[in-house]
């Protein structure tokens, strides 16, 4: 697991290691699913998108497995202190990873729809937003493995960048829609894709906060939202 003190019960150490391994496996799968979904969108690769949709079940199954395993650990070992915080953090992280998997699946589903239209230039902006989000996931999974609260805090800071990307994509897509109503169909899908990526960033931030809790036992201060699109009105803006 890491250089934490060993338990008198070796079996408990082994179980905590197993929990970590399962979570790492799930994290790797969520990361790969998102990468494939973004790749499929960028290249209009419907076959790859279809695979992403199918593989989501595997992440769901792992989430369930981690839940059951954690419940069993709590019942059998009655963990306290850092062990208790770690197990509860693991349960929550697994839920966040499961949601990231769902969002990847949703992006893949939209790829199947968007691919029927001629390509729009926004796919470049989406790819660069996805790049930031994917880096966050990788960083947060590394921080969990290393129980690195500082590394996790850095991930939280990057969420601002994601929100900025999202706001800019929102405006860009609105522009295309106002230019030509035929863009409304694909742009609406792409808007959801952008929103999904923004949510993935939020889940990465959630995971980072759970790491902080597991390691330090403290909760982070209230998160600030940076999303200006909540109040954006296009007609008023362009007038």
């Amino acid at each position, binding site marked *: 697991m890491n250089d934490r*003190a*060993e*338990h*008198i*019960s070796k079996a*408990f150490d082994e179980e905590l290691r197993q929990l970590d391994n399962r979570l790492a496996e799930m994290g790797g799968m969520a990361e790969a699913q998102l990468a494939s979904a973004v790749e499929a969108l960028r290249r209009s690769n419907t076959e790859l998108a279809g695979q992403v949709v199918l593989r989501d079940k595997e992440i769901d199954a792992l989430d369930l497995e981690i839940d059951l395993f954690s419940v069993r650990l709590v019942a059998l070992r*009655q*963990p*306290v*202190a*850092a*062990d*208790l*915080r770690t197990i509860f953090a693991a349960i929550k992280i697994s839920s966040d990873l499961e949601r990231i998997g769902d969002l990847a699946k949703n992006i893949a589903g939209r790829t199947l729809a968007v691919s029927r239209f001629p390509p729009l230039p926004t796919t470049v902006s989406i790819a660069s937003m996805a790049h930031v989000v994917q880096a966050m996931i990788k960083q947060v999974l590394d921080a969990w493995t290393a129980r690195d609260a500082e590394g996790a805090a850095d991930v939280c800071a990057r969420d601002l960048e994601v929100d900025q990307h999202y706001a800019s994509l929102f405006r860009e897509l609105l522009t295309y829609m106002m230019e030509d109503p035929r863009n409304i169909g694909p742009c609406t899908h792409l808007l959801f894709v952008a929103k999904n990526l923004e949510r993935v960033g939020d889940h990465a931030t959630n995971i980072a906060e759970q790491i902080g809790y597991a390691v330090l*036992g403290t909760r982070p201060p209230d998160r600030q939202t940076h999303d200006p699109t909540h109040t954006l009105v296009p007609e008023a803006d362009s007038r």
Partner: protein
Amino acid sequence: MDMSPSNAAPKLTARGVNVFYGDAHVLKQVDLEIREHEVTALIGPSGCGKSTFLRCLNRMNDLIEICRVDGDVRLDGEDIYDPAVDLVYLRARIGMVFQKPNPFPKSIYDNVSYGPKIHGLARSRAEMDDIVSSSLGRAGLWEEVKDRLDAPATGLSGGQQQRLCIARAIAVRPEVILMDEPCSALDPIATARIEALIDELRQNFTIVIVTHSMQQAARVSQRTAFFHLGDLVEVGDTDTVFTKPVDPRTESYISGHIG
């Protein structure tokens, strides 16, 4: 969600308490406040000094010849080690329940009435009957024994005997009840009953409990004090001690770490 009144007045205050068994320094400079109407759990590995500390609180260590206690222990601000203190009266104010139930080889009634009798708490048989029934009631034993108060106490089950000992302790209307591993000889059901009882009793009494079961400490107490090798390592709200202990020695002990 802190359920314990953090501004509760200290009922017992220990300051700079040191205990020696001959040359062995078994309790080192312990400062601890016991708050009124709260359950304070003392935890720690065997030989850490938790039972020794408990016994300082009603001067039970006076009974051990080689034992020497230094420092200051106050009940409501009064020094309990003052030579003028009447020990019998002190132990009526601070009652005790032991690890193994130890009823007198007498009837159930006599076990409970013994203390009130020697302290002259009842002026008539009717008053004594009241004390016996209310003490047994508070100890959650009345319904089970009300029809056989003259039966020998030794015929009760272990869990019943322990509740009888609690009834016996509360019959003299103490202010503080000290419990030294009161459930370690009981099965899980009897243990659950005693734990529920402890929670009810804290409405009227201040309770200090030594326990080897950390889950029990977590369940019944509002404050937890962790002892290690004669030091009081950490004391705090039970919630905090079990979710985010401050001292690494506490973390290691409660998590079952090696070393």
